[in-house]
């Protein structure tokens, strides 16, 4: 069936089978491979994207469920040619080693900072508790989020 999904502000229309998972629609149909595909069981969280402004695990959503809705992926974090503070934080604080979990981690923690600009460490750890990182032990991920909280993006003049 034909669906139109707005991804990072751009409308995309494709023919998909109803059983197509959102993660595969993003990666294979739209070529947005920043969203990763990991455990396939809604445990690991590498596939987290925003659906209508809320982080969801895209391995456990059908592409057709996103029809007419807005999706934001890691490719949509960068604004006007500049990295999002959360991306800067992961870079500055070495918030990754292999990088496999990083897109999902950044989508979740960007959402956290939008709702809670100054989260405590327990709040950060709770926010990423549905995501697995097998490299860092999470310490540098927490530091990366704290860095981003301390360096919010400057308001862009209208």
């Amino acid at each position: 069936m034909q669906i139109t999904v707005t991804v990072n502000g751009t409308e995309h229309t494709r023919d998909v089978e109803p059983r197509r998972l959102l993660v595969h629609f993003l990666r294979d149909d739209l070529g947005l491979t920043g969203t990763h595909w990991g455990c396939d069981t809604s445990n690991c969280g590498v596939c987290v994207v925003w659906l209508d402004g809320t982080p969801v695990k895209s391995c456990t959503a059908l592409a057709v469920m996103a029809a007419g809705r807005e999706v934001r992926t890691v490719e949509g974090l960068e604004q006007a040619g500049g990295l999002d503070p959360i991306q800067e934080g992961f870079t500055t604080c070495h918030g990754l080693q292999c990088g496999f979990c990083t897109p999902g981690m950044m989508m979740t923690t960007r959402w956290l900072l939008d709702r809670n600009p100054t989260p405590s460490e327990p709040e950060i750890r709770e926010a990423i508790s549905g995501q697995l990182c097998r490299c860092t032990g999470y310490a540098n991920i927490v530091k990366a989020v704290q860095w981003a909280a301390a360096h919010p993006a400057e308001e862009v003049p209208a």
Partner: protein
Amino acid sequence: MQVPAHFEYEKATTLDHAIELLARLGPEARVLAGGHSLIPMMKLRLAQPDALVDINDLAGELGTIALDGDELRIGAMARHAELLASAVVGEHYPIFHDAERVIADPIVRNRGTVGGSLCQADPSEDLSAAFAAVGATAVIAGPNGTRTVPVREFHVGPYETVVGPGELLTELRVPIRPGGGSAYEKVERRVGDWPVAAAGAALWLDGDTVGAAGIGLTAVGAAHFAAAEAEDFLTGNAATDENFAEAGRIAAANCNPVADQRGPADYTRHLAGELTTRALRRAAARARGQEG
């Protein structure tokens, strides 16, 4: 790579439309809410429905959480995260906040729904025990209008409910009575996992006496997710730690756990009793205003 079998997909725009679609698509159609139980089952080919009726557009119509007179009304499309964030739920039934904090993880809770959790009817599901403890009523809509079912009669067996072909669960209604306190206690292998065992308690105190008690149990083979014999023991008895311990012993003796990958039966039975006692103590403290 896990891929569901083929199915037909329809998106419902209203409750009436959903019921029309279910009637047209037949008994092998399934309702798709948050999808966090159904889609994994379909990916594993444990479920192969002919058709799905997506009700996510009904989140406004069926997702409301509100007080209505002396009832707390929880829409079937309310997401776990919304139940956890609801101040009115926390004020009247903290048992739901206790339970939601230990259901899955924050991202899954953004998507999974209250109604979907109950309709999946997993014998280890948390909210089934919480709703059994508080004596909720399920509202089911179908082609002939709506009907209500006490939540303790909602589950027919594992993965089976009284929701028939062409019907869908629309709402849970929970009576509000003064003097109450409630709590949920769970033991899990790792954060966000299904319980090894869990117990929910709701108590209404009349001074130092238990006026009414509701005890829900999950993952321990309790009939109707409840500990009816322990409730009977407590009702009219003194609200003391000794009686809560005895209620735990009665609950443990009357459940029917089986050994599984989460633990042996004797351990699970032990937990059923201990968690029942702890939930009762905490519910009583809350009823007395001693704990938030």
